[in-house]
């Protein structure tokens, strides 16, 4: 008996996606697309709105956990990625997993599995890079940072910065996904926030930025200059939020200018 073709519309959450899977198997429907939120695209197929229900999501979660403990964490991560049509990719993977069971998980090169692994890897790489590239500014005691990632990285950065800045209050604003991670006194929240503009930095903050920029300009060994290598490791799309590539209003003498001056040999 052939399953009906439909389009699912869900709320964008991971549990919502599990509910879509639940609906598909209980109603014997085959989703040709799984979309999030209002989509005014006209389509041949019927669109069904799936309401997120905890019990349904839990049942699907249990069935996946029975196959292997590693499946749900992987799928959660894939759901955070920027893989196009990730919901459908996840659905197809789960369908294949149900059909073939646990041995499918060793077939790392399979066409329904490998793209998920690659997307998850891309997400992990971005998280790793951002851990280092995020720059905080001190706004009167509260640390604030801005990022424009491709994947939804805030849930994965949360734990790291909560530990690193344990006794501080900080926020990280994600320009791409319009959400912000807020942390204070041991508690963190990720909230939607349409737009954000940073307050102008204070004098101490400006001083530290200047010191960092000077440090950054000074440490490169001119004879080893290699712009291609630098971009390989640090893609240009991260540069706009990094202090060392920004210019604050005031004109500051560059490292070259200082060393060219005749400086008296003074100690301490």
């Amino acid at each position: 008996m052939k399953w009906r073709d439909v389009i699912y519309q869900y709320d964008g959450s991971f549990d919502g996606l599990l509910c879509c899977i639940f609906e598909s198997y209980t109603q014997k429907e085959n989703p040709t697309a799984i979309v999030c939120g209002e989509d005014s695209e006209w389509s041949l197929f019927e669109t069904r709105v799936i309401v997120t229900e905890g019990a349904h999501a839990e049942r699907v979660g249990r069935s996946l956990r029975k196959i292997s403990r590693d499946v749900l964490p992987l799928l959660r991560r894939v759901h955070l990625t920027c893989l196009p049509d990730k919901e459908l990719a996840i659905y197809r993977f789960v369908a294949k997993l149900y059909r073939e069971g646990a041995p499918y998980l060793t077939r790392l090169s399979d066409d329904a599995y490998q793209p998920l692994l690659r997307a998850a890897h891309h997400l992990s790489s971005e998280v790793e890079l951002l851990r280092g590239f995020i720059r905080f500014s001190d706004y009167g005691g509260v640390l604030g940072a801005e990022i424009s990632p491709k994947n939804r990285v805030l849930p994965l950065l949360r734990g790291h910065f909560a530990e690193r800045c344990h006794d501080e209050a900080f926020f990280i604003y994600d320009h791409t996904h319009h959400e912000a991670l807020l942390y204070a006194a041991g508690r963190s929240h990720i909230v939607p926030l349409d737009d954000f503009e940073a307050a102008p930095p204070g004098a101490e903050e400006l001083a530290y930025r200047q010191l960092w920029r000077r440090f950054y300009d000074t440490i490169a060994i001119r004879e080893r200059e290699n712009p291609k290598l630098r971009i390989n490791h640090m893609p240009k799309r991260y540069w706009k939020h990094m202090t060392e590539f920004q210019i604050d209003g005031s004109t500051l003498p560059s490292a070259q200018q200082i060393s060219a001056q005749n400086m008296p040999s003074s100690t301490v």
Partner: protein
Amino acid sequence: MELLEKLTILADAAKYDAACTSSGAKRGHRDGMIGCTSSSVVGCCHTFSADGRCVTLLKVLLSNDCSYECKYCVNRRSNDTPRATFEPRELAELTIGFYRRNYIEGLFLSSAVLASPDRTTELMIAALRILREDYRFNGYIHAKAIPGTSPELVTQLGLLADRLSVNIELPSEAALRSLAPNKTKRAILAPMQQIRDEVIESKAELVKYRSAPRFAPAGQATQLIVGASGESDRHILNLTESLYARYRLKRVFYSAYVPVVENTLLPSLDTKPPLLREHRLYQADWLLRFYGFRADELLDENQPNFDPRLDPKCCWALRHPEFFPVEVNRADYEALLRVPGMGVISARRILVARRTGPLHTDDLRKLGVVMKRAQYFLTCCGQAAVPLRLSYAGVLSSLLAVERESLNPAQGEQLSLFA
């Protein structure tokens, strides 16, 4: 002198030190303290400088007012260059300010020799103590131990830092004698031995008492300058292997010699830094540590230097055709690691993926094997991975072409010297 000027001078003076890691100490948040160490195996790269090198720590000298006269060093006593010294407190405050803003994972503190090794080390200890105790810093600290320092001071330094290094700099005693007469071999090796022993002792104590003081939990490293004196790659690699074995080092860093000084004993000022040679040495270092190679397998009396046109693993593979082809579906892990283009992660993935079914060439590509190199050395289910069987000369020229593509311009320039 203003802080900005001091930072400029002392960061500029420290930049030839290649050490750049921030991994090895696993400390989570501690109550009342600021920060923690990186939990990742590879540490954390906060930025990359214009020369493409990773920056993870605030790398500075405490002072560049040196009383030694090492002929290759920009900070040598007789050089006319601006001198500066940090106040211990201002250095600590700078470190905390940078750390809070996520510019750095921690501090890398070295120093020129102010008056004497002991005096310098006392000042370093003062700065680190203020950082750890007054500012409650819990992040990463890498401290350089000055050759010739008294053992008691080395111990104190190790209790404040995560990693300690003593730079060997020159790969032979003869080179040391002529280029760095103030640093004797004994003065360098004695603290390395002491650090090795105290790290072992500290780990043993920790097994018994959880709150025993930790001495250099991230271990010990060192640095060798490549190209300042005439030693062969074989000499350097053998030295590296014995350093890892004898002193239990975590890393040996290589720093391509950048001429900053005119001297008859040193390469001329217009010599370009031997970046390609440094790159080959790092590749060989990885082969020693992760791929199960021995130094004498990579270089011997007949070949005392690396072939700059090919990476060391390809060279070994071409010299040992009897080892190949390796059957991907049956070979053990150690044999897979010997295949050019096969990394540790790809090999591990192959071991997992082949459990349920045989692997073919397309699968290997998806698992991350660099087929452009590996195809000449593998079979999948008995079938050669390369469509046409090539002679030795054919394989060599294909590998040379692949390698030329993959080198970056700075390294590729040096290749043209050998073409």
